[in-house]
């Protein structure tokens, strides 16, 4: 009787590892984009900023989109875009966020935006109640 030769089965792992790495990279990158719902803005960069780097889980980011004359084109909060005359809508979005566990509100605004518009946003957050903490976001890479 003929003895069968020992057969060693080798799965080629290399393509699988490649694909796995690609998936890891993809998900890491995508989750960062989704997490940081951040609009590119020219943030204020005070000299020797005494600001702190905060890493909080439940933050809501309010982006105030500037126009070149110092006024505001709109406000972006996550997927919502709010007009400048719809501050009640902003309050209700912040209120929903607070009800869903948001603990901090980050306010990102362009350095050239006039304070009157930013004050409206601060007032809208304040009117929600519940004493949310507002963080004024600044750029730490001082570009002067």
């Amino acid at each position, binding site marked *: 009787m003929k003895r069968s030769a020992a057969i060693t089965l080798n799965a080629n792992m*290399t393509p699988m*590892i*490649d694909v796995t*790495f*690609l998936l890891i*990279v993809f998900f*890491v*990158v995508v989750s*960062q*984009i989704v997490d*940081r719902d*951040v609009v590119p803005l020219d*943030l*204020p*960069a*005070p*000299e*020797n*900023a*005494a*600001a*702190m*780097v*905060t890493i909080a889980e439940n933050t809501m980011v309010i982006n105030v989109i500037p126009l070149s004359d*110092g006024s505001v084109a709109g406000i972006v909060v996550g997927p919502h875009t709010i007009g400048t005359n719809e501050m009640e809508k902003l309050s209700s979005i912040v209120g929903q966020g607070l009800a869903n566990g948001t603990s*901090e509100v*980050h306010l990102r*605004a*362009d*350095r*050239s*935006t*006039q*304070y*009157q518009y*930013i*004050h409206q946003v*601060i007032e809208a*957050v*304040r*009117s*929600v*109640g*519940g*004493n*949310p*903490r*507002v*963080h*004024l*976001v*600044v*750029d*730490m*890479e001082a570009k*002067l």
Partner: protein
Amino acid sequence: MIDVVFLLLIYFMVATEFRRAEASFPMDLPAEGRNIEVMLDEEPLVVLVESAGRFTRDIRVQLEGPWDSIQSLAELKKFLRANRADGFGSGGLFTPEHPILIRPNRETRWEHAVAAYNTAVQSRYTNITLGKP
């Protein structure tokens, strides 16, 4: 192996690009229905801020009340530091918890409002609020 190295390279390039150097100033807001001015037990030190131009350095600050006149952020910092009461024996007028109300006018650029806020934080005061324009 080259594959893996390339992947790591791409990963770190992308990751560093997304990590922006951002930091923030925490600011507590008074509850609804209460005016910022009314909720304060003590008379706040009011700092008026306005923009004199389009550049970071074009900022004008002024103290409301019977204080020495100040012009620049450097003078504001000097004033705040000189008048901070650090425990027993210091000649300061304001405790670190003394309310400071930064009040930019309507047209003040946001960077100037933040710069004034930063100056108060640098001078180690803890109760700083942005007020009505």
